């Protein structure tokens, strides 16, 4: 029942979205009814009991950032496409708190429109992750992806640093926040820095590589693997990245939007935004050059030494 209603809404939204496609992202007119209160730190309403206009502080967790909303994938949505129409009245009816909200898969599951994202495969991948296994039902897609603001980054962004910081922020929102962490776990909250103390300069690393580059296995068909592995299976070997065949080529650096801007060659390697990774930035020309110089030096030394021995023998 819920699903049917949702599918219909999706369809309706889809059509309106298509109509508004070429236009600037514009907040839906009817949303201003909600945003009048939900976009500000304070809100005012007419108190029927006291018959007075009152101004109060809005719970910061209930404030919607309209800029982020308009840059998200669901910007064309009306609030009540997802939330109940009954929110139009204030105070909101209390049973609205119990309203079941749609998950990503409720709307996107089995939908070919966005086949390129492989929603069903992501769902299956996620179901095998430690989060789903240990967190169970509580751990939904929404724990990482906010439906209001969700934005596709990795496949669109041209800046590695943007991808890394946005993706890591998702993970850090729990792993450096004991309160959110407890939403899905009864276990103790491990200290994030201590866990990664084996990695020198880990703050620098976390600005240049994603958590998921070490904590998932590569999935060729998925742009973003969702199977967070148990800690024992995380990448700990430095050479996975710090070597000529750095695994980052198959993970973080695989996105075509990044590669399109770069061609091979030394200068472009230096021009790249990519950080310098010890051991992984090898320039074939330099390698050939240095090996030749080395061999020439050694050959010179050997010939010289042989001549010395030889001539001494002769003169004796």
């Amino acid at each position, binding site marked *: 029942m819920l699903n049917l209603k949702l599918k219909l809404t999706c369809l309706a939204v889809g059509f309106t979205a298509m109509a508004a496609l070429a236009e600037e992202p514009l907040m839906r007119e009817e949303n201003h009814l909600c945003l009048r209160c939900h976009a500000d730190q304070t809100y005012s309403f007419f108190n029927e009991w006291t018959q007075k206009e009152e101004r109060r502080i809005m719970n910061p967790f209930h404030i919607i950032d309209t800029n982020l909303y308009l840059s998200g994938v669901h910007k064309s949505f009306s609030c009540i496409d997802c939330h109940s129409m009954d929110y139009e009245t204030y105070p909101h009816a209390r049973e609205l708190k119990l309203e079941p909200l749609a998950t990503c898969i409720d709307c996107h599951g089995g939908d070919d429109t966005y086949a390129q994202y492989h929603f069903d495969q992501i769902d299956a991948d996620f179901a095998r992750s430690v989060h789903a296994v240990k967190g169970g039902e509580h751990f939904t897609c929404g724990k990482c992806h906010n439906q209001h603001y969700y934005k596709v980054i990795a496949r669109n962004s041209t800046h590695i640093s943007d991808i890394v910081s946005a993706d890591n922020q998702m993970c850090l929102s729990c792993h450096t926040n004991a309160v959110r962490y407890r939403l899905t776990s009864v276990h103790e909250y491990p200290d994030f820095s201590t866990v990664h103390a*084996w990695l*020198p300069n880990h703050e*620098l690393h976390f600005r240049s590589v994603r958590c998921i580059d070490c904590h998932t296995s590569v999935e060729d068909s998925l742009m973003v693997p969702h199977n967070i592995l148990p800690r024992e299976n995380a990448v700990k*070997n*430095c*050479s996975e990245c*710090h*070597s*000529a065949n*750095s695994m980052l080529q198959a993970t973080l650096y695989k996105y075509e939007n990044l590669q399109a801007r770069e061609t091979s060659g030394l*200068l472009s*390697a*230096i*021009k*790249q*935004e*990519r*950080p*310098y990774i*010890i*051991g*992984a*930035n*090898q320039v074939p020309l*330099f*390698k050939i050059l*240095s090996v030749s*110089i*080395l061999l020439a*030096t*050694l050959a010179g*030394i050997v010939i*010289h*030494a042989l*001549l*010395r021995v030889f*001539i001494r023998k002769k*003169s004796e």
Partner: protein
Amino acid sequence: MPLKRVYFYPLWLRIWHWVNGAGIIILIATGFIMHWGIHGSLIDFNFAVTLHNITGIVVTISYFFFFIGSFLFYNSRYYRIRLRGWQTRIYKQAQYYLYGMFKGEKPPFPPTERRKFNPLQKTSYFYTMFLILPLIVFTGIGLMYPELIIDRVYRYNGVFLTAMVHAALGFLLFVFLLIHIYASTIGYDPLANFRSMINGWHEIHDHPVLKEEKDEDEDEDEEEDEAEDRPVTGNTPAAPEG
């Protein structure tokens, strides 16, 4: 028996030399491991990084002592290059190494109390000690504290450029080291120079050479040494080959 023993290498210099030598060898080995991303069951990247960092600091400090010591004990005078006739002298020394020594010729610039290095040594040591080493120390410090490096040099990645320069200089040092070690075997006997770098004494065996060559190049050296305390006057002896 040597004709004469000259105290060539004071203790501080010898200590510096061997600390520096061991350090450079470790740095080159770990540098290669890191730069080429060499890995295997016996090689631990993390260990290579740590070792490289620590050794780098030790070598930097020891270089600092060398620098101070050189000026304090007038060691630096052995590195002073006099430009006039320099090319000719280099050429002469190279000729000697390339075929002169095989024909039994005498070395054109044998070591004396006043002259530790022949022109080729002097040049290569000068560039190594006062150009390559400071540069590699500076780039190394930069890589250890990347926040010191300018992010972008025009459109180029600052850390990347620094790392390239650091690696290239390291490679040059490696080539220098190979030649340096080999050249040290060219002495009275192959181990003579190693011995003197341990006990400090250089043995002069070949008196006639000293005598013979004296007029040809000793003047050049003398002038060099005295140049610092003596103003240039009209009667400066001419360079050997004009």
